[in-house]
């Protein structure tokens, strides 16, 4: 019997549209012999919708929500599915495929709700997701375990703009968001203030690091904490990848219905990459995913200071754009997207069972 797979995408975050792309791309790749797909769109107004209308791009552009059916997920383990809000109907769901990026969807909020519903869902647990999406917390944790990170200063939004200490040039980035929104290089105090002011439109916390002049970015994807994809070196037009570089390149516009990270210019498994660095990347990836108990497909981003050949951990994406399928494609033997999703789904089901295998009812009787 086919499993009922709900694919969740959208979300109340800046990466909302990227998430739609990841979600629809994944739906196209799912093995429909094994799964019946229920697309679920988390709209900017906070409501969840399902229905065939979700397959039409105009639905999102026009916000024609009256063409879809509003559903919701309740924190009630007995339901095991989504409830229609207008009709008296339940959509049974066996497993949830999460394609969210950014706030609320990738940071543990939705994961928490799914845990309360005792649902099987792909990707990391709430605790791992939350830590991963808070760059400062994540780096603080990893550095305590010997993973090299670039030291950073955390600045919280307040009444006045406070300048960081340190020598310029500095690199300013939001502590919480992914995808390089409001990321900026500051060469002096004036630029720093403007960068911070802009950043505080999107996040309440800013992370300030020193600028690596001669920068090489190296990414790697990890599946279930024990399978490693080839590394990639994403190629940017400017100093470091900006949101525009990642998602708004001309290539992605002319591509087929997909786009996003998959169409960014990249060099996968570059032959001229220093083998020491490559080995370090894989080793750190192993340690990090083990320490943080990562599951599903994640992507780790590292930075190399080419002046010192020093490798630094940069960030962990619990739900990478396009599930980094373009990296797994390049494995030998290649792991095609369909299979990648299959393995994520199996892992999700397995993990749910594992998390259920503890007693929750038995406790100190305080009453």
């Amino acid at each position: 019997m086919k499993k009922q797979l709900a694919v969740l995408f959208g979300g109340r975050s800046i990466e909302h549209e990227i998430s739609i792309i990841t979600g629809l791309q994944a739906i196209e790749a799912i093995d429909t012999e094994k799964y019946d797909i229920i697309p679920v769109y988390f709209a900017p107004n906070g409501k969840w919708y399902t229905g065939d209308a979700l397959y039409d791009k105009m639905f999102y552009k026009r916000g024609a929500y009256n063409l879809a059916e509003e559903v919701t997920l309740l924190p009630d383990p007995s339901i095991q599915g989504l409830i229609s809000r207008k009709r008296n109907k339940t959509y049974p769901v066996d497993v949830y495929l999460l394609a969210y990026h950014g706030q609320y969807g990738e940071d543990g909020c939705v994961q928490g709700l799914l845990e309360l519903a005792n649902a099987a869902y792909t990707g990391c647990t709430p605790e791992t997701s939350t830590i991963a999406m808070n760059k400062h917390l994540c780096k603080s944790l990893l550095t305590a375990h010997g993973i090299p990170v670039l030291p950073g200063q955390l600045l919280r939004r307040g009444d006045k703009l406070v300048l960081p200490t340190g020598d310029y040039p500095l690199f300013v980035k939001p502590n919480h968001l992914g995808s390089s929104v409001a990321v900026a290089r500051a060469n002096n105090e004036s630029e720093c203030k403007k960068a911070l002011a802009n950043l505080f439109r999107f996040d309440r916390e800013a992370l300030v690091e020193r600028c690596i002049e001669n920068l090489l970015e190296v990414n790697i994807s990890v599946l279930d904490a024990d399978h490693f994809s080839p590394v990639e070196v994403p190629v940017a037009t400017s100093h470091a990848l900006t949101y525009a570089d990642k998602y708004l390149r001309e290539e992605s516009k002319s591509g087929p219905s997909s786009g996003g990270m998959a169409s960014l210019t990249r060099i996968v498994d570059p032959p001229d990459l220093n083998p020491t660095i490559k080995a370090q990347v894989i080793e750190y990836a192993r340690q990090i995913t083990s320490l943080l108990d990562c599951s599903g497909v994640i992507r780790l981003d590292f930075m190399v200071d080419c002046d010192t050949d020093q490798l630094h951990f940069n960030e962990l994406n619990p739900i990478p754009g396009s599930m980094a399928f373009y990296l797994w494609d390049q494995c030998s033997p290649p792991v095609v997207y369909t299979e990648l999703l299959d393995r994520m789904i199996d892992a999700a089901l397995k993990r749910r069972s594992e998390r259920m295998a503890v007693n929750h009812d038995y406790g100190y009787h305080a009453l």
Partner: protein
Amino acid sequence: MFLALSLFFCMRSLRYLRYFQQEEYNGKRFGHWWWKNRAFDKRGTLALLLSPLLLIPIALLEENPLRTGKLKLRLTARAKRIWAVSWIWFAATAYFVPWIVIPQLIPLFLVAANSILKPYEAWVQRRLAKQARTTLSRCDPEVIGITGSFGKTSTKHILGEMLQTTLGATFWTKGGINTTMGVTREIRTRMRPGYQFAVMEMGAYHEGSIDRLCKLTPPHAAIITAIGQTHIDRFGSQEAIVRAKSELVNAVPAGGIVVCNGDDVQAREIGALRDNTLYFGFSDGCDCRIVGYRLNHFTLIWNDKRYDIETQMVGKPAAMNLAAAFSMACTLGADPDFIANLIPALQAHSNRLQMRTVGGEITLHDGYNSNPTGFRAALETLDAISGKQKVLVTPGMIELGSNQAKENRVIAEIASQVCDRVLVVGHHNREALLEGLSDVNVDLCDSRDEAFAVLRQTRQKGDVVLIENDLPDLFEGRPKF
């Protein structure tokens, strides 16, 4: 046979409904539109004369108002109600009256349907407004009302971002929503507890409209952006415009913050209603004074301190909007330094003197309901940008009542000083504009589409183009009936 007629009525009435909706369901203005565009039926009547069955192909070939045109038909609940009732009028009339007259009566059915439904619509609106008021008082944000002949929407967005980033969660209405109905809808769908501020744009469509908006969202503070000559034809006179906008200041409680355009004599009249009014502008004596203005940077003098401002929003009107928002934000408690550093990140709201550079080619989009002051400022901005040829694409200004011809002529004279080429769109101000234009290459285009096609073909490298006043297609190539 009746089916053929019904099919025709179905398609044709929807087309008329689209224009009726654009005229905000005002029978008089719809009638005016009908007359100006000679929108009486020709095809239907011809078909009925020859053979009623011809109505079927004609009906099927009617353009789809849900898809065509710049402002498409939106099937709102109200639109559907009017349409449904118009069917009853149609059926009843078709029973008694010879069919040959029916095609001409279709617009009338819509107007009649609207009239009958008015009491019901009013009741629905009152109920919804009451819900909105309750929601607002539960959430209790500090309400800042913004009115003025132009600059409301831009200032609202700017102020909203400023307050949200520096002081607290801020609610503001999307786009250019500024009517009681629109604001009610926004509040009912988006207002939640937790918002500390609410920036409400208030459109003065006639005397009393701002009063009504103030009853819906009682303001604690106000901004008067400018008093120009926009919409004179709705008000009747300049005095009436001034009176209508002072309703906002009158609604602000004693001691509430009032920020007012200090360059505009009539705005100052309104500001004078209070003794603690703060003024912004270029002139001496403004509390927030703009100095050293150049295309996209200037200095603000506030509380005896100077703040250097860089911005992506070009033009003097943008500088005024920024100064207005800056004044209000700082008076509400924001740190001026924080605000000044935030401004470079803010982008122009779409279509309000927005400079777009595509492949090295610069185009200024000033597409929203032009007025003499804004048009002048846009031309000034066009002048300030360096380029080879300066090109203007415009249908001229509308809704200026009896001054319309004169103002268009005057602006054409000014444009002649700045531009090398002008594309005049449509017929509404053609004569007036041609009268004022001299020493420029003029292209006369019937429609917006034609103008853009010509522009695309003839645009040269280094040309700087200003697209001024992109009117809703109500004013474009005549629709064919």
